[in-house]
């Protein structure tokens, strides 16, 4: 395949071609999988990405893992999309996880903003899935998980948090709960980590953000809209906490985000080739949209940075 990235039109075919060009095998194998979970990959009416893309890639470093989140039914009603997502992602979940999905679906009652998504990742040649289910506004989630008590009460460390989504991973049986939170302070995060039984490494997170953005964190963590997710192991213990914000709020336009990750990756020796190819500017010099930037703190003190990117520039393709 002769692919010169900058000239390639953006979109699903272009993105798959870019992936295939770096790692032979990944393109065809994964392309089939993505077409199964996202039957309309060229749709521009999905609510998954701000620009309407129905597929969003995510990179996680230092390992350089590549993942995708897909809209199984762009343009469909939330209830219908959740049905499709469950059909694609519920099959290999544990009994406990399935019970959680049923409860979340009952809470939603076919309503909500989007319903659910399907995550797909290729690990050691094996394709695995993660089911994402929306937590609707009216859901009484506060008393359901240990995370509920951590993140909701008038006197909680993080005020005004709201559970928005659950992710169920078929590989390790974990349940990841995603929260929208107001701007939070590193000290608050530190307190939260410590309450969740995770290592309260305040300075590790802020140092990583400073390394990525080129700007020290003084005061609150940057970005107006922020999110947190907590991964709960099957035994109910927290396994990791991830802090998110919009890449646009951290870096500005996508080209700046891309430059920042490439520079940080180069300094840290991360594998950046796939990311660099996938996000190369198109013929109009536009860089694919970047979504959420995150930093994860694991139970063993490990740290990981992640970024999501769409198929096309913000506002869709210029072509």
């Amino acid at each position, binding site marked *: 395949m002769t692919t010169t990235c900058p000239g390639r039109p953006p979109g699903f075919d272009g993105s798959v071609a870019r992936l295939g060009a770096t790692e032979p095998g990944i393109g065809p194998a994964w392309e089939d999988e993505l077409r199964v979970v996202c039957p309309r990959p060229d749709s521009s009416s999905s609510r998954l990405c701000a620009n309407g893309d129905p597929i969003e890639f995510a990179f996680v470093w230092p390992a350089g893992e590549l993942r995708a989140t897909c809209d199984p039914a762009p343009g469909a009603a939330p209830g219908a999309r959740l049905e499709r997502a469950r059909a694609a992602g519920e099959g290999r979940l544990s009994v406990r996880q399935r019970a959680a999905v049923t409860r979340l679906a009952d809470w939603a009652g076919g309503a909500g903003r989007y319903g659910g998504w399907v995550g797909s990742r290729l690990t050691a040649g094996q394709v695995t899935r993660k089911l994402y289910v929306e937590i609707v506004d009216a859901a009484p989630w506060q008393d359901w998980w240990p995370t509920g008590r951590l993140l909701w009460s008038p*006197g909680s460390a993080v*005020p*005004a948090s709201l559970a928005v989504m659950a992710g169920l991973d078929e590989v390790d049986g974990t349940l990841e709960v995603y929260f929208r939170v107001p701007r939070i302070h590193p000290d608050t995060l530190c307190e939260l980590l410590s309450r969740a039984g995770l290592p*309260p490494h305040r300075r590790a997170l802020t140092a990583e953000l400073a390394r990525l953005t080129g700007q020290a964190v003084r*005061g609150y963590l940057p970005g107006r809209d922020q999110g947190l997710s907590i991964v709960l192991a099957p035994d109910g213990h927290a396994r990791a906490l991830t802090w998110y914000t*919009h890449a646009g709020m951290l870096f500005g336009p996508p080209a700046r985000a891309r430059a920042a990750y490439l520079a940080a990756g180069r300094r840290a020796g991360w594998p950046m080739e796939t990311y660099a190819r996938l996000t190369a500017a198109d013929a109009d010099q536009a860089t694919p949209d970047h979504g959420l930037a995150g930093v994860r703190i694991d139970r063993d003190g490990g740290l990981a940075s992640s970024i999501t990117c769409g198929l096309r520039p913000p506002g869709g393709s210029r072509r």
Partner: protein
Amino acid sequence: MFDLTTAREIAYGPGGELSVRVFRDRTEKNIWYMEPAPRLRIQNSQPVFSLTRYLSNDSEVAGVLTFDVELHAPQDAKLAAEREIPEIEAWGDFTWVSGDAFFDQTFPGPGGVMVPLVTQTPSLFGSNVASFQVAVATPEEVATFVAAFTTPGGVSPCRVEYQMGVLTQLLAAEARVVYKADVAIDYERTYATKKDTWGNRKSVLVGVKQTLKESGAGDVRVTPGAGVSDEIKQMVTDWAWTTLENQVAAAVDAARALAQGNQSPVSVTSDFTRTYSEDAIVEWSTPVSANLPRFDDATWPRLYREVDNRELVVTFALAGDLYGPDDVDLFEYVTVEVRYPTRTTDNTFQLIPGDDDAVSKTYVAPGGGTFDPNYEYRYTVQFGGGTPAYESAWISETATLVVLRPSDFGIRNVTFLGQNVPFGTTVEKVLIDFFEVPPGDLPSKMQVKEMTANGEAGQVSFSSAYHVPITNIYNYRLRYLLKTGTTVVYQPGQQFGSANADLVMVLDPAPSLANMAVRGLVSAKKKGFLDVSLHASYYDVQNSAHELTHRWTGWNPPRKVGIQSAETWYFDAQPDPETAYFDLSGQIVYGEGMLLLPVNGLKLPYKNGPLFLSDTEELLSVEIFSDAIDWEAVTLVTLNLFQAVDEAGEIAAGEAPKTGFALAELDDPEVAAGFTQPIAYSVLKPADGVKRLPSFYTLRRPISSEKIVFYYNGDYVLATGGAVAVDETAVTGKLQLHLPPLPPAGGGRGIVHRVEIPVASL
């Protein structure tokens, strides 16, 4: 002054989870400085904190939260630093030159309880106390606060942040900050429907902070000097972003005066680039923040009260630089007396400068029946040293926070500091002309001082003490005497005294990147512009700039409703804001009816920012001549020009004529809504090297209107004291306003005149 290249991060507290930054003094190697942290203030072993709930159903307020915070250097942090850095023998105190404190918090609850951002001005002395008062809207929100401060464990979720400025030398790196106005406009247009971006006056800085980076309109480039560590580079980058945010916030704020009608202030900002070279004296600022504590069961009952009716709660605070030369207090104390019907005794208290326990006072009067926000207060200042005390008249007020600034006591201190002036090479010295309007009939005079060195060594201060309240406004003019014998003049507009310190940075007079932007406002798809062709010449006669020209040919702005930007013209200049201008000629073809209007000698003042074309208006300029003024008798002439606008914020074509009214009437928002923001001109008495040049005002005429209407007022401040107002001046045939030598005595100050000229007569 501290040396920022010596910055060290010190871990302290249990497990070393907390950290502070320390710096060494530049000359005294055994003196170090510690960045302080905020904390709740304790007075007489009690937290200065109170939450009150009103049990009766007041429609607006269900309770009030008041508390004082201050800055301090934690003792265990000092001990940790001393262990790590054995050479520390003493701790220095930062000399703050500016400061702000913030409290903002979002809580969960029905519909998401939101406490709006509260900004406070901390005192610049002692422990920098800031007194907050937060009105709590609903009983649910009061309950939320109660839970936040009483739920066991850790600290409360409520957080305060300080941003304090301190002078230092940028030893480590060169920093360049860049702002691109058209990117910001584009961003604002895209997101205008989503949020109130930069338009909210009180939180403009917060808005800018939130949006500058994500819009891509701001950029920072730091070039580290030799041997500079990554950490120092990081600090300088961080500081440069803060500086850019502050400058953009100031630009947006200043642009409010230029934004006409419904224009957003962002659309009237211009690009700028500023480079801070190594060695520049800069205002260093980094935010520090901390959570407020939670209270135990023994303490809480003393801090929380429930009362039947809403009380009158007013915080009185001293702010500003209250020290004179040699750090002497400018006054001894202020006695404040409050009059409110429900509290008849114990209505008098003292505020004492430099005393953290007496720098502010929260006055509480019991509620009774229907809440009445109106109260009266008066203050008496004891200056000491034999100066008679000043007692104010009774002042009617409804504000819950009364800040008493030095100008309220007739005291002003303004310091000028050289930042990057090439003394010794190109600049001989800088003469600073300083002028303020004296109160009452006191004689006025221009103070002139010389600056011959950068930094604190060469700093020049102007102090005045009238001992009666003065307006918080002053004017200054910088005259750079160059070694070549020429003079470069820089006179910005009127300065409003800052909340707590007045520091003017005197910059390099060398030409730097200036620009002119052209924007077109398309009001409807069928209107817009078919063709804009303009030729611009830049003139700065005062500073003998060579004529520079630029041409926009056949610009055809997209006919999309909103603001469109033409390519910006960049050139090197050091404009005198008071007199530099662009002379424009060419033609504009308006979309509606293909109307062609020539542009013939339109003079656009440089300080007015971008050329803002509207598809419903023609631009014209008024030339203001000040060469006839009798400068033997007059020290300053202030002039305001403005136009009437209709309900939609467009220049009014047929407004009801109104003349002979007082400018002060515009203080009433309802009256002000009928006019554009007055553009102020300050004409200072000439001095050596200063030419007598005309000023310009840009007028807008609705294309459909047959006449041009504008309003003006002019006041002459007399050398002998007092002021007289410009009488009605005939403007016919030419758009020129000739200021008379000296208006006849007796003319009331601030009287506004209306000028109406038929287009056909021009």
